Each structure stands twice: as structure tokens, then as C-alpha cells.
């Protein structure tokens, strides 16, 4: 059996969808961030896979993944800072409480 591209892509996609699911259902903001990491990770995997399988002669996908990891780190740091900021004010991290502004 050959392990072709699609064999890798599907788990990656599932990971992405898990991220989507988690983001939409989890009420803890940190859990949402964790879900986001899943999604970003899935994107990284995709880039690496495409690069490796389809365009082995270059490294653009790999570099994209590299930078994406850095971006993800930056995002997470900033997001956690804001979440902590909120936690200080309302003493919880429940995303559904964030509805003072609506309609």
C-alpha cells in the first residue's frame, strides 16, 4: 500500500474540523484558543504535505508552515493576554458572557 497524499490530508482535514467544532462549541475561551491551534496546525500540515508530495523541488510550503507557527505563537500570546485582561474584570472566561454589545 502506498501512503499517498490523500491519506495524510484526510486526518489533517479532520483535525481542522475538530478545531471548527471546538471553536463553535467550547465555552471556555482558552479551549477555543486550543481549538484554533488545531486549525492552524492543520493548515501547517497541509502546507508541508503539499510541498512534500506535489512540489518536492522547493520549500515554499515548508517555509509557510514555519512562519505560520510563529504567527500562531504570536496570536496565542496576544489572545491569552486579552483573555487574562477580561478574566480580571469578570472573573471568568466564559465566551457566552461576552454579550454586552449585541444587535
Amino acid at each position: 500500500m502506498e501512503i499517498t497524499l490523500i491519506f495524510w490530508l484526510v486526518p489533517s482535514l479532520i483535525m481542522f474540523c475538530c478545531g471548527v467544532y471546538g471553536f463553535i462549541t467550547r465555552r471556555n475561551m482558552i479551549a477555543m484558543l486550543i481549538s484554533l491551534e488545531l486549525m492552524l496546525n492543520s493548515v501547517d500540515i497541509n502546507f508541508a504535505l503539499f510541498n512534500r508530495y506535489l512540489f518536492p523541488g522547493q520549500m515554499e510550503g515548508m517555509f509557510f508552515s514555519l512562519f505560520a507557527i510563529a504567527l500562531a505563537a504570536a496570536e496565542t500570546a496576544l489572545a491569552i493576554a486579552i483573555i487574562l485582561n477580561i478574566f480580571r474584570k469578570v472573573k471568568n472566561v466564559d465566551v457566552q458572557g461576552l454579550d454586552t454589545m449585541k444587535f
Partner: protein
Amino acid sequence: MNSVGSIILYAIVTLVMVVCSVLTVTTRKILRAATYLLFTLFGAAVLYFMLGYEFLGGVQIAVYAGGIVVLFVFAILLTGKPADNAERLTAKSTFLGVFAALAMLGVGAWALCSRVTRMLTGAAMPEKAQETVDQIGEQLLSSGHGGYLLPFEAISVLLLACIIGGVVIARKR
């Protein structure tokens, strides 16, 4: 034809990634979610190694597993008791989540299959030249084609800004 070993490795990595990501988003204990995330990220790192992107795998472990997950754990510990169970999901939000995830899965799978399988059914991983960290470093700071000097500089500005932002927001005053 892949070796049996690599197939087994594939199976394990895939299983870990899929199961752990599912567990990440379904477990009711937030600290466990972070742990499962860690396993997922490790799985991805192994995947990178299998693909031959050792550098990327290293970065994945160092930054993701070593940095981000620790950050999460800190945040979790700061914002609540780790033993706390998350509240039960309402049917509505579960439905919406499942619906969105399945829709995404369906569309994504359909799109990928329609294209990728047609081109590459049965195609094994092609050979590639093993790049060294040297090359990676060279390319990262090159300004020619395929060089990433500009993004590298740009992301440094971004990271600086994120530091400033993080500081200004996280500090108490």
C-alpha cells in the same frame, strides 16, 4: 511501496492526531484538552519528520509543544481551577458545531478528493533532495527568488508589536 514499518508508523501517527484532536475538543476538563493538544502537536511533529522536514518538526516541538502549550497551561491555571468540568453543551450549540464541522469536512473532502486523487492516486511520496539547516537559513535570509528576507523582517516587526501589545494589555495599570 511503503515499508510495513512506515505504514504502521503512519497508522499510529494518524490515529494519535485524529483521536487526540477529537478528544481535545470533546473533553470536559480544560487541562486535559491542553494535554491532548500537546499529543496532537507531537503527532504533527512526527509527521514532519516522516516527510523529511526535520527542521520544521523541531520548530513544531519547540514552539508549539514547548511554548504555546505551556502558555495555555499557565493561562488555564491562572483563570480557573483545572479540575473544573466544563458545563454541558446545549443541544443547539452541539448541533451547530457538528453541522459546521461536518459541512467543512464534507466540502473540504470533496474539494480535495476531486482534485488531488485525480492527479495523484497511488502516487507515492516523491524523492527530494535533503535540505540542510544551512540551506534553510540561507533561504530564509535571501532576497532572491524563494528567499524569505522580507517576510522574515516583517514578521519580526509583527512580533515586536505583539510583544508591545501583550505587555500593554496584560499589565495591570
